[in-house]
């Protein structure tokens, strides 16, 4: 084995541990911040979720979320935090793939990419359906 790159499973464990930790802390902080704004603006309205009507239009699209984060609308900020949270384990798979590339473990580079592909197809299918 080459001595130059000495990237091992233990290194990958440390990196992945940090990816997950930072992902959760950052996304939950954003959700919390958005939650305070949301409660400040809508706290005294009546909560009604008895019927499924989807989510408000203004947070349905990525561009809508971005526009409304800038406008400091709580629900858009919360939704952004939740999307980051969902992205955290996916980011972990991307980092694993990079780790396996560094370890020159072709089989597991392939397996990691396959998992990413499935998640990608899932994203597309949600868009179509």
């Amino acid at each position, binding site marked *: 084995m080459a001595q130059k790159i000495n990237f091992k499973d233990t290194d990958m464990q440390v990196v*992945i541990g940090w990816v997950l930790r930072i992902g959760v802390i950052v996304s939950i902080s954003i959700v919390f911040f958005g939650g305070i704004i949301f*409660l400040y603006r809508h706290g005294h309205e009546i909560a009604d979720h008895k019927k499924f009507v989807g*989510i408000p239009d203004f947070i349905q699209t990525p561009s809508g979320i971005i526009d409304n984060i800038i406008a400091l609308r709580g629900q858009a900020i*919360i939704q952004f935090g939740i999307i980051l949270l969902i992205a955290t384990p996916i980011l972990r798979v991307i980092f694993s793939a990079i780790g396996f590339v560094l370890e020159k473990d072709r089989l597991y580079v392939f397996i990691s990419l396959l998992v990413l592909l*499935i998640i990608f197809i*899932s994203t597309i299918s949600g868009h179509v*359906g």
Partner: protein
Amino acid sequence: MSVIIFTLIILIGSYFAGLLGSLTGLGGGFVIIPLLTLGLHVDIHYAIGASLVSVIATSSGSAAAYVKEGITNMRLGMFLEIATTAGAMTGAIVAVYIPTHYIAILLGVILIFSAIMSLKKKAEQIVKEPNKWALKLKLNSSYPTAQGTVNYSVSKVGGGFVMMIFAGILSGLLGIGSGALKVLAMDTIMRIPFKVSTTTSNFMIGVTAAASAVVYLQRGYIDPGISMPVVIGVLIGALSGSKILVHTQSSRWLRWVFAIVVTFLASQMIYNGIIGRI
């Protein structure tokens, strides 16, 4: 009910759900769906979305700690994630076509099953006979114990893989982590040491839930007003649970309490599903 009261009730309920979930090892989002649907009359679609988000938060948060300890078998996790993510995607897509009262009944059944599973005594098992597929896929590994590093082999790779597809489908369909099924697949079929199967299952839950969350996100199941208190409450609850766990050794009675609570909620889900109220 005003939004602020609604948020506070969910926050407190989710805190205790996360606390009990982490103390018993059943996972955080577990009682969230019954709490929201039966307690607060929230539509089950929103409840599934919020539960799924909280599952990702607790799984990622605790996986961060476990991975560093070197107990998690990352290759095994990655390999089985092919099965769980494919299953979760299928479950999330199919969920749209299944009437909600069937989903409520199925959820109740799975909850009872998981509660029973959590009561089972766990004996540590170490298998050493090599398995052809486990060797090819480099799944055999070792983990640190008080007595030093222990090597183990993985059995019945194919059977475990199929079981994981099933666990993935249920996770995508019901918005739960289906940790109990994942541990069952790894414990009884693949015969992995209990500590490894628990941490590896937890490691996989986040990605599995993410694979169906991307579908639910676009379908409008994930409502920010409901998900916000759920995810914050469950995560803080799970965190305090993990702090308590270090200090108390016997959590046996707690498991019983939780199993009874879960069974009660589950039968309510099944009852309401059968009479068509959900």
